[in-house]
């Protein structure tokens, strides 16, 4: 009994901390799932992007940002069809996948790596494989954000869980290709050039380690106004503004106390 009392006395501060808890449901306990991947350049595209998908029941919410892709096609915003491919190795193809040697990994040549279309990431309407080459519901232009909630089919859901889902964003700038590849027809839609349907970005989706919250963090009340050390630092010349808005601390102006 005495021992127990001592133990209790040791943790008053901790107990106080626990007493004010207003924690949300633990990530693992909600039954929801979240997957993510970075979208990396393929076939020499200059693009990049990030992709996350939260699954709650049969509803999936995608948050995607893409930049650096081909901007125009015949004078109009370039339609970048995009899909979640499923059911194969769950990886992005390497240059070895270019079996016909034309310098482009076509969508077909990539299939052994990432599999067939499970979900079309269309901007409206049908999200099934049937909408896979509908240019009207593609991501438009060189940079776009895609945020959509839709009903997730069972096959894509299973592939996400198995870690074999891969996002592929299609559509290359033809001027970056060899002459032969520029003249080649699409392996999917013969009326289109090969460039239009070939992969430009690829990212394997894996279970998220952290359930990504939205936006920044409101961690200041202002009682010290501009007095915070971080504020003083920001006023000085000790920051380098990098592309994308990140400010990197190169050296500290304030001496360490």
């Amino acid at each position, binding site marked *: 009994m005495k021992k127990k009392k001592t133990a209790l006395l040791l943790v008053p501060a901790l107990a106080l901390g626990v007493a004010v808890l207003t924690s949300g449901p*633990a990530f693992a306990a909600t039954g929801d799932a979240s997957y993510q991947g970075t979208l990396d350049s393929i076939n020499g595209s200059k693009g990049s992007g990030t992709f996350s998908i939260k699954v709650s029941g049969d509803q999936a919410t995608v948050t995607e940002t893409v930049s650096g892709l081909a901007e125009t096609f015949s004078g109009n915003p370039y339609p970048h069809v995009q899909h979640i491919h499923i059911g194969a190795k769950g990886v992005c193809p390497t240059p070895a996948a270019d079996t016909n040697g034309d310098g482009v990994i076509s969508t077909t040549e990539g299939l052994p790596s990432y599999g067939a279309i499970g979900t079309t990431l269309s901007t409206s309407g049908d999200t099934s494989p049937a909408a896979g080459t509908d240019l009207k519901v593609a991501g438009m232009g060189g940079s776009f954000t895609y945020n959509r909630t839709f009903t997730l089919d069972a096959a894509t859901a299973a592939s996400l869980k198995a870690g074999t889902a891969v996002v592929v964003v299609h559509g290359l700038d033809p001027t970056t290709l060899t002459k032969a590849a520029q003249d080649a027809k699409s392996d999917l839609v013969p009326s289109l050039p090969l460039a239009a349907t070939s992969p430009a970005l690829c990212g394997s989706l894996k279970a998220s380690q952290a359930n990504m*919250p939205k936006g920044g963090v409101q961690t*200041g009340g202002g009682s010290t106004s*501009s007095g*915070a*050390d971080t*504020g003083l*630092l920001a006023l000085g010349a000790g920051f380098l503004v990098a592309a994308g808005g*990140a400010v990197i601390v190169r050296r500290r102006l304030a001496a360490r106390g």
Partner: protein
Amino acid sequence: MLPAPQVARVVGPILTASEPTQINIPAIGVHSVLMQLGQNPDGTVQTPSLDEASPAGWYTGSPTPGAIGPSVILGHVDSRVEGRTVFYRLGDMRPGDEVLVTRADATVAVFVVDRVEEYPKDNFPQFTVYGNIDHAGLRLITCGGQFNKTTRTYPDNVVVYASLVSSHAA
């Protein structure tokens, strides 16, 4: 059904999951118990109350400190009532500084700072901060930049990135 896959490559030490109870940062004099923080209904991360002597808090949607992935600990830079608060000096941290997190399993996870960055809240790089990684990482987050007296907010977030290097008994 196959289990959810983990990131294939793992760099450095990894601890089994155990919830954090306390954080100590000798370099900036931080000694705080840790509360637990979830998400607000709008999907943003909860923060401790501004009107209390608030401790720092672990974001329960992130891995426990020492487990693989980006473990997130938040603290206010200041409050309305108390002046300087727990993470007031976070922006003073520099690479090599130690961060000690005590866990419920009576281990102390020892992290070393890799880098300190500052981001505008309206252009917060979620994947960089919260995205999957190949090691047991820690992100300490507070507010930064010039306080806006009209909106009573700071425009930026300061994020300290650290990696697990070792652990010992508490």
